[in-house]
């Protein structure tokens, strides 16, 4: 602030003189007096205001007429400040100065230059800080005739100072920090300030750079040139490479932060992030620049590393050609595309990026909403795997295995999906071919089985007529002649043989198609052998072959299907009889082998024996031994069927032979623990049972669903003239029949269709009309626990199949006696 300090005093004290004096102060004072930016207040020697210019009016809110000749400047000043000033001046000048105008003008009155800060109070009561300069106005004799107080509004400067004070702490912290390089330059860019951070980072001391170089001199020159070129282009004006390139934007008031490579004193380089700010004076004119820089090396190197990792990962993913690796955004649009995707699906990356992935699906899948469902499934569980047809660019389809993986950020928000696709078309084709081949083979095998099965049935019908009429003729009356009987026997033999053949073919077909069911259970070998003996003896007798069966000390039990085991043994026995020498013998053996706890049943003949090459063909279908000589009938299938059956019973079949001596066929089956079922069974006596003449006829009801069992009982009962047989095929019919015809004894199977034998028994026991009838259980179930259960349930006796004739007959007799005694007891 420049004010004229030497004011020549006016010649006298009159107003005219004062005005004249004022006028003499010159053009500058004039300017000041009439300026609206300065308050100019002139007073008389007492301080009463005589002049109050427009600036004063503007600043203070008073009209000149409000104040002239009325108040002193002290009246519009902060009274406390006036008091404080008076006290301070009294102290300073060692003379008492009264608070009031004196306090404002005393120094000036003593000729001392006086500029001070003061708070003026406006007419409205508001205040503002002012800088006030006071000058004494003097007449020609240098007597004080008044005072001139020129004031400026100091509000803006005050505010700026306060702001600066506030900002100061931060700025000085930044400035003194070793972590930031703070470089201040003048407006030309010459470094004026170089803080410790700059020294540390750049290796220069402040003294080496101050007033010597610009920041451009310690920056990568190529980058500076490039930046100048880029800025020239961007801002449409020519910017010279040099400091301008670094500060131009800041000079235009544009915030500017950029990356730049600084060069250290030792020539080494480091990446820096530089923020540039223009420094301006009060008039906003640029007086310099402040460049604050941070060392970006660490971040740069981390970025580099990350970029490298990302790049190598990207390259890896891109180069995989066996798998399509595709990123999808959360909506399912393709975000990345690798070589494998291109190879498998046929799209180039630029054709498919940003397109929805549903185009890889078949139309009907898209229509059914499958693409969206797949994404939802992946989003729901994190991973979703699918296998199915997908579509290539050219419309062709391929069999794909697709794995979707949902990708979420740390906050759990879905960011997209990774989709891995494999083309399994080839594998699928191979598998399909394999499956088709297998299916075709199975179908062919099934067709063969079906054919054989239906052929078997077809053949049975005409055979039924042949055998049936031959049987009629055989037993016709009058009886056929001897020659006729011989012919009929030939027809019947051939017919029954043909039936065997058909049965064996059917068996083989059933075995091969897996339709033959086996029920493996503990089977008493003694019982089976006894039954076989009964069945085969007539044949042996006809052929004059001696049969030898073993005597059992301890009855062996084996795991087998009873019916099928019998079939196997009959086959071996009939072969041994057929292919034997005249007057030969067949020996049946039964030994337990240490191996695997099994039982070996052997059938040894005294036939011609078999050379090794024949033995190898034995179990092949349709390789009937002895066919060459045609000496004996045989299907050639029997052994094949036997082998399969034994294998299905987890057993082994084998043969040993010596040419000229004989052959032994053997079967090994797993042995099971012997059951506690009473003494070994004697061969059944099939002789006619003697019945007392004139005994009353009794009725036996047999409830049984199996025709074979029914037939056997029919045969047994046919031998007893005192018994008549009734039958029912299930429990309900059995109960109904029992109520209606009141049989004397009931024979009940346990495993019946509908209600079981046990249930039927319960009903019979609870019905007064049937409660008295003894019921004998006849069951294939030989498990002791079940037998006990049957006895507990109220069966008179519990017999197990196969039927032991003597036991069966004795049981019937006992039951009938009991019934008789009951009846006579009731009658008497």
């Amino acid at each position, binding site marked *: 602030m420049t004010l004229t300090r030497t004011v020549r005093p006016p010649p006298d004290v009159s107003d005219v003189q004062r005005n004249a004096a004022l006028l003499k102060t010159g053009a500058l004072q004039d300017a000041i007096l009439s300026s609206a930016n300065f308050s100019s207040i002139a007073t008389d020697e007492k301080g009463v205001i005589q002049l109050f210019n427009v600036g004063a009016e503007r600043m203070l809110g008073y009209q000149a007429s409000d104040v002239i000749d009325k108040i002193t400047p002290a009246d519009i000043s902060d009274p406390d400040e006036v008091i404080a000033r008076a006290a301070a001046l009294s102290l300073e000048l060692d003379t008492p100065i009264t608070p009031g105008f004196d306090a404002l003008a005393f120094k000036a009155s003593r000729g001392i230059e006086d500029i001070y800060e003061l708070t003026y109070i406006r007419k409205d009561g508001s205040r503002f800080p002012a800088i006030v300069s006071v000058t004494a106005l003097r007449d020609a004799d240098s007597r004080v005739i008044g005072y001139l107080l020129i004031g400026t509004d100091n509000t803006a400067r005050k505010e700026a100072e306060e702001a600066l004070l506030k900002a100061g702490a931060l700025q000085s912290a930044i400035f003194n920090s070793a972590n930031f390089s703070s470089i201040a330059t003048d407006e030309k860019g010459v470094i004026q300030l170089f803080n410790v951070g700059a020294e540390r980072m750049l290796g220069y001391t402040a003294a080496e750079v101050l007033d010597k170089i610009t920041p451009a001199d310690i920056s990568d020159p190529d980058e500076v040139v490039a930046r100048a070129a880029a800025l020239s282009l961007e801002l449409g004006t020519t910017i010279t490479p040099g400091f301008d390139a670094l500060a131009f934007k800041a000079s235009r008031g544009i915030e500017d932060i950029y990356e730049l490579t600084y060069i250290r004193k030792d020539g080494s380089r480091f990446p820096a992030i530089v923020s540039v700010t223009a420094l301006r004076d009060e008039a906003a004119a640029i007086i310099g620049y402040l460049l604050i820089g941070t060392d970006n090396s660490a971040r740069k190197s981390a970025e580099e590393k990350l970029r490298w990792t990302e790049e190598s990962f990207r390259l890896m993913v891109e180069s995989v050609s066996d798998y399509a690796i595709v990123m999808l955004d959360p909506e399912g649009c393709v975000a990345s595309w690798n070589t494998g995707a291109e190879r498998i699906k046929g799209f180039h990356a630029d054709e498919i990026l940003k397109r929805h992935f549903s185009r890889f699906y078949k139309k009907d899948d898209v229509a059914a909403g499958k693409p969206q469902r797949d994404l939802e499934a992946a989003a729901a569980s994190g991973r979703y795997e699918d296998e199915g047809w997908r579509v290539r660019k050219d419309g062709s389809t391929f069999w794909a295995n697709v794995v979707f993986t949902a990708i979420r950020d740390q906050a759990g928000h879905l960011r997209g999906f990774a989709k891995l696709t494999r083309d399994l078309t080839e594998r699928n084709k191979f598998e399909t071919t394999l499956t088709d081949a297998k299916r075709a083979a199975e179908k062919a095998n099934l067709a063969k089985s079906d054919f054989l099965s239906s052929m*078997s*049935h*077809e053949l*049975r*019908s005409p*055979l*039924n*007529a*042949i*055998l*049936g*009429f031959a*049987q*009629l003729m055989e*037993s016709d009356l009058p009886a056929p002649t001897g020659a006729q009987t011989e012919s009929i026997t030939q027809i019947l033999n051939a*017919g029954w043989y043909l*039936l065997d053949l058909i049965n064996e073919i059917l068996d083989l077909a059933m075995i091969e198609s897996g339709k033959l069911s086996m029920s493996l259970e503990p089977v008493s070998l003694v019982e089976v052998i006894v039954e076989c003996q009964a069945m085969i003896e007539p044949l042996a007798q006809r052929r004059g072959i001696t049969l030898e069966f073993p005597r059992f000390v301890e009855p062996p039990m084996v795991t087998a299907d009873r019916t099928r085991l019998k079939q196997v043994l009959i086959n071996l026995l009939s072969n041994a009889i057929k292919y034997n020498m005249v007057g030969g013998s067949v020996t049946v053996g039964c030994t337990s082998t240490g191996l695997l706890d099994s039982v070996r049943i052997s059938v040894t003949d005294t036939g011609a024996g078999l050379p090794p090459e024949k033995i190898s063909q034995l179990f092949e279908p349709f390789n009937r031994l002895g066919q060459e000589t045609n000496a004996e009938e045989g299907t050639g299938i029997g052994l094949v069927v036997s082998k399969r059956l034994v294998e299905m019973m987890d057993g082994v079949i084998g043969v040993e032979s010596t040419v000229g001596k004989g052959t032994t066929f053997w079967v090994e089956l797993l042995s099971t623990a012997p059951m506690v079922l009473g003494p070994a069974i004697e061969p059944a006596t099939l002789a006619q049972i003697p019945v007392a003449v004139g005994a009353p006829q009794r*009725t036996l009801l047999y409830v049984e*669903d199996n*025709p074979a069992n*029914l*037939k056997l009982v*029919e*045969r047994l009962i*046919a031998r007893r003239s005192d018994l*008549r*047989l*009734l*039958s*029912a*095929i299930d429990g309900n019919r059995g109960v*109904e*029949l029992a109520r*209606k*015809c009141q049989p004397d004894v009931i024979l009940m199977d346990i495993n019946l*269709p509908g209600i079981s034998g046990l249930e039927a028994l319960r009903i019979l026991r609870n019905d007064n009309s049937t409660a008295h009838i003894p019921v004998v259980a006849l069951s294939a179930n030989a498990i002791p626990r079940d037998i006990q259960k049957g006895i507990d349930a109220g069966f008179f006796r519990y017999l197990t199949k196969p039927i032991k004739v003597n036991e069966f007959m004795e049981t019937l007799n006992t039951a009938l006696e009991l019934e008789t005694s009951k009846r006579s007891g009731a009658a008497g």
Partner: protein
Amino acid sequence: MPRILIVDDQLTNVRLLEHTLRRAGYEEVSSTLEPRNVAALHAEHRYDLILLDLQMPEMNGFEVMAGLQAIRAENPVAILVLSADLTQVKEALAQGADSFLGKPFRLPDVVDRVELMLKTAAATRR
């Protein structure tokens, strides 16, 4: 004297069974080659036993039994199924047959079975 009906599409089988049963002493034995007529024939003649073949081209034995089902309650009749297909035993019994014999059969077996069934049927009706 029990009334017996033989149902088979093959004349030889019909003849064979007729001969066999007549020789066994059954006099009221009639037969048909036309399974469609069975229900009507039974309604008219009220047989005691029907010998029924299963494999017949126009109408098989199962269908015949189904057709008889409605009138069997009123006119009870025992049914003996004769079939070359032994695998059909269970099915035949489940569908209404009272007994089953495989073809080819031994003639005494047929006679025995017929006798047993007629006895049982008579006892039921008593």
